[in-house]
């Protein structure tokens, strides 16, 4: 037991210590010390990142009687999740000023959400997975509702209800799977399904499980929450919401699809069809929207569905494309939300409020525009390579999936339309006497924006290293 803790659990333990520390400090310190909360949590995440080096990965390590595991795949996801968490903490400077009293609790919840996300990826049985998902989910409700006003509460409540229903789906699937295989451990289920014939009930349970998990990615039956949640959420929380739960869920869905749920052909088709519906819904919804946050909500849903469709066509090669796509997507998204965070919460995020912003803030706006163009899949940014690499996976999965691919490609035209709608007002002419469009950005926001845009460009021009890494990870799963 103690061995297991020291072999694979030290990052979580580090985070846990800092969570407790933040809770204690929230009781002891006066509200004036709110600035330290951000620094303490940043230190906590940095320590967790350093502790990742202690995790055993060769070739796979199972701890706590096989309920938690670690290999290079989980290590990569843990690293990216922690990094995203770090960037989120950097972006929260403006938010913390408005919630002075609750700053310590807020960061404790943020850290526990990150801890939940790490646990989700490294879970090796359904019980651990469920507990971790709830840890991630419950922290997220509070994070969403943290900003002032009615909309954030509405958003949190909506997220709560959707998550509850999707948890029901998930548990339903798990109970059926337990009924078939007699185990909740991934390895034992995988052994069972490779030895025995599978039935339709197995497929139904697999579909239920994946749907329950995919609700956090806003895939079709549970897609509507994303609009209201993004609308009501503070931008730094959006940077969290659009990266960390997504990474965690993809991390576990990919593993489930390769091992315990990998024997179901129905799953592939159901997920592919649902993803196509999601992509269609999200892209058409965004066309008539004028709120930038909602447009990015739709974009998040659509992008998740592209990646999930590829992940459902199970093969190791496809897995590497999905991981690469996710990494590129997360980087672009952080850049986008860093810019929106600088823009501030005072004005509504209407497209017209961004007009002419380029003329006073050249660097920041250009970086933002590059990130958005990258999301649209325009070269030379990483989004171009990521999309091409992802679509090679679908095209090489057989001629049956060509209609799906064609559908996705045509939906990308719609996507380009709404991304252009976001970008174009930035460059419009404006009245030179108008003082309000000068953006006041602090150092950490600029750092995140420029770093992510630089990475986006770098990966776009020479993607080979990251692709090699993703292939290595995918072949070692």
């Amino acid at each position, binding site marked *: 037991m103690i061995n297991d803790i020291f072999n694979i659990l030290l990052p979580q333990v580090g985070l846990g210590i800092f969570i407790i520390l933040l809770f204690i400090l929230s009781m002891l310190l006066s509200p004036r010390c709110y600035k330290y909360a951000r620094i303490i949590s940043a230190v906590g995440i940095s320590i967790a990142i350093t502790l990742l080096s202690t995790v055993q990965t060769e070739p796979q390590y199972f701890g706590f009687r096989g309920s938690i595991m670690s290999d290079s795949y989980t290590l990569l996801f843990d690293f990216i999740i922690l990094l995203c968490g770090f960037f989120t903490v950097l972006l929260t400077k403006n938010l913390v000023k408005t919630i002075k009293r609750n700053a310590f609790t807020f960061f404790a919840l943020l850290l526990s959400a990150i801890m939940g996300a790490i646990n989700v990826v490294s879970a090796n049985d359904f019980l651990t997975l469920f507990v971790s998902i709830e840890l991630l989910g419950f922290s997220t409700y509070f994070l969403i509702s943290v900003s002032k006003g009615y909309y954030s509460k509405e958003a949190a409540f909506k997220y709560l209800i959707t998550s509850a229903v999707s948890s029901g789906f998930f548990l339903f699937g798990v109970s059926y799977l337990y009924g078939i295989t007699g185990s909740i451990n991934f390895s034992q289920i995988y052994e069972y399904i490779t030895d025995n014939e599978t039935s339709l009930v197995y497929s139904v349970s697999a579909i239920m499980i994946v749907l329950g998990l995919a609700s956090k990615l806003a895939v079709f039956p549970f897609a509507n929450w994303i609009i209201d949640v993004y609308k009501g959420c503070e931008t730094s929380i959006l940077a969290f919401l659009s990266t960390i739960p997504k990474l965690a869920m993809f991390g576990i869905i990919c593993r489930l699809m390769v091992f315990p749920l990998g024997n179901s052909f129905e799953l592939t088709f159901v997920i592919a069809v649902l993803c196509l519906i999601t992509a269609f819904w999200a892209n058409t919804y965004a066309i008539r929207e004028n709120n930038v946050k909602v447009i990015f909500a739709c974009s998040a849903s659509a992008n998740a569905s592209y990646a999930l469709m590829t992940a459902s066509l199970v093969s190791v090669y496809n897995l*590497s494309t999905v991981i690469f796509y996710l990494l590129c997507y997360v980087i672009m998204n952080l850049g986008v939300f860093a810019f929106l965070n600088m823009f501030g919460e005072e004005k509504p995020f209407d497209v017209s409020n961004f007009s002419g912003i380029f003329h006073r803030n*050249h*660097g920041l706006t250009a970086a933002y525009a590059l990130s958005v*163009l990258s999301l649209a*899949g*325009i*070269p*030379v940014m990483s989004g*171009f*390579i990521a999309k*091409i*690499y992802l*679509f*090679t996976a679908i*095209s*090489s999965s057989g*001629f049956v999936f*060509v209609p799906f*691919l*064609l559908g996705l*490609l*045509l939906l*990308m*035209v719609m996507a*380009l*339309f709404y991304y*252009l709608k976001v970008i174009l007002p930035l*460059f419009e002419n404006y009245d030179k006497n108008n003082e309000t469009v000068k953006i006041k950005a602090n150092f950490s926001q600029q750092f995140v924006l420029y770093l992510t845009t630089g990475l986006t460009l770098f990966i776009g*021009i*020479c*993607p*080979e*290293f990251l*692709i*090699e890494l993703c*292939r290595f990870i995918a072949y070692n799963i």
Partner: protein
Amino acid sequence: MNMILSIPILILIPCVISLILLSPLFTSNEVTIRRFAKSVCAFHFAYTILMLIFFDSANPYTANISFWGADWVQALGIKFSFKIDEISMILCALTSFVFLIASISSKFNIRKNHKFYYSMLLLLEAAIIGIFTSSDMFLFFLFWELEMIPAYFLIGGSFNYGAKNYDEERERAKKSAIKFILFTFSGSMFMLLGILLLHHYNFIINGVLSSCFTDINDSAIPMSIQLFIASCLLIGFGVKLPIIPLHTWLPDAHTNASTPVSMVLAGVLLKTGAYGIYRFNYETLPQSFQIIAPILAILAIINIIYTAFVCYAQTDIKRIVAYSSISNMGLILLSLCAFNKIGLAASVFHMIAHGLVTCGLFMITGIVYLRFKDRNINTLQGVAMVMPRLFGFAVLIVLASIGVPMFAPFISEILTIISAMNSELSFVIRISALLSLPLLILSSCYMLKFLHKGFYGELKEEYLKVNDLSVHEFVVLASILGGLLVFGLFPNSILSMIS
């Protein structure tokens, strides 16, 4: 010599200069920017001509860029590799020339946002040169996509200044730019599907994980799949070319863009579609092309005849020129469909000839519009009375576009018809050759109407003080006319290179 004359430099010159122009450190003085951009274009043209002079068809220019010893995407066999063969070389020279004259003629047409405009112009040049030189399918696609963004900003941002109804004109330019980008992007998505499938089937059938044009062997790929791939690719190129049902973006984009942008669009951008058909369908997938060619020939005939009639009905002089270029692109498509050596030579020759002619015509309409603030052929008249020099050029260039001997289009039209007549593929193509003959009459109808209605007649009083051509405009028109005459009198200079 190969060290100095290399393809990456050819692409990087405009690309880097465009970034320099865009950076806030560069001066925002209008004159400096204009002269700087012009001299860069001139240098680029000189560089291309040097490459053309030292071109050796036995030993074409190639370049393969690697990143710290690794290819671009090794997992897919995608390489960052370039190659210039005869056709690419000729088209690069055309591109460089058109951009040079476009940058010269920008002086009177662009009044605002100079930095952004010239930067986008140079970025577009880099992308188009990239399309013509890349020897890898995905690299081709990269440049194909890259070209859209500057083209969008050029069409939507640099509208016709000095218009009477400024705001309306601006809105229209934006709308047509969106139309352009949506059409092109949907086309290119079909093209991406074709490329992905071609890459995949080439890998599983021939066992070569590569996306270079030379590594693709279509002989063993099943014909149904080949046809599917070929038609996906053709939709992509057909939007750019344009082939008839996919053409509606073109008249709007060309009409609402400012003169130099229209010159670039019609002069070079349309040729990327024809080049794509040559590179992918004609050269890489010849088997399926032979089956599709008769259908394409019919589409080409529709392009030629239908647009000629549409063109005759237009009243906007820019629209007349735009439709006439659709008609001429049909001719290029027809000569490619002939699938023989003469046809290939004819198509490349017509790309050059039409590129020059259409640049000249757009220049003339632009000059007239700048002076008279009017593009309607019914109200515009008497231009010849105050602008005799422009009239002289207009007559000569219109004659060239009709296909009068001594000018370049004459040679290419004759060659097209000869090649289609001699085509061994199908009788449909031979009949198409016959059907394309009316083009010569129809084109003279609409072009002479353009000349007759616009330039003759009584001049309105308010236009009596209009100035004739300025030095810039004279230089542009004279160089276009010179090119037309040189290639019309010595066609072998190009034809000998191709065959």
